[in-house]
């Protein structure tokens, strides 16, 4: 009697429910990406300002002393570092 009474009597299948779940996933992913992007940007800006404030003379002097090929190499290294960081955080940037 109780078993019969408590059984699930309806099958709740609705495409709208699936759609709402997938929309929620998309929305949460965007929120996470935005938060991650914002804090990454904030970190880069703060780090750059701190770097320039602490070692302005040495850093600028060092840059002025570099020849063109060394500057090019430095730029390539910076871009490589950026690409490495993006690859490292790939799970977070990857779209669902």
């Amino acid at each position: 009697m109780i078993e019969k009474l408590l059984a699930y009597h309806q099958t709740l299948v609705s495409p709208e429910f699936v759609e709402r779940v997938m929309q929620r996933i998309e929305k949460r992913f965007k929120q996470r990406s935005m938060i991650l992007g914002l804090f990454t940007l904030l970190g880069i800006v703060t780090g750059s300002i701190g770097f320039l404030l602490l070692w302005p003379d040495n850093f600028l002097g060092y840059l002025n002393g570099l020849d063109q090929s060394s500057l090019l190499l430095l730029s390539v290294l910076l871009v490589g570092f950026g690409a490495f960081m993006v690859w490292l955080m790939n799970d977070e940037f990857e779209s669902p």
Partner: protein
Amino acid sequence: MSSHSSDGQLITRVVTVNDQEAFAELVQRYQSAIRQFCRRLTAGDYFLADDIAQETFWLAYQKISTFQGKGSFSSWLHTIAYRQFLKHAGSQSTEVYEDDSHTLDESTDKAMEADIMAEKLMKQLSLAERVTITLSYSAGMSHQEIADITGFALGTVKSHIKRGKDKLTSIVQQKPPLTLTPQ
């Protein structure tokens, strides 16, 4: 194409290539069980139940790589849903959900009536009795599976089920199900 794949195959696709269609198929497969489970836990608060069910699938998506396949995917989802429900129950002042928008006299759908009746009966049980009774009699799970999902000891599961069943039996004997009215 996905409808013929096993749960394991779909999960693998979600984990390895982030396949959204595969996850949507898993949601499609388990939405009924999880939504019904949440409806019973909330004793018929459909809005809250669907919100918990959606949150359950979102968390499942987020944590799917941690699913080790030791139990069934269904048990894993029920565990998440139960924890989500406890969060909601803990954040609310009362464990009785006031939702009596359905009346048995107005309903013509027998299956719906029967589900509404079962949800109303859930209001007479404690949270522990609700979850153990629902998983046992509605979801058809073994006592060990229920212990795994709820974190209760096996003996505690059995005693909650017995106490809940005794309560419901006495209610039904006093008042036959078809004459039960919303409180």
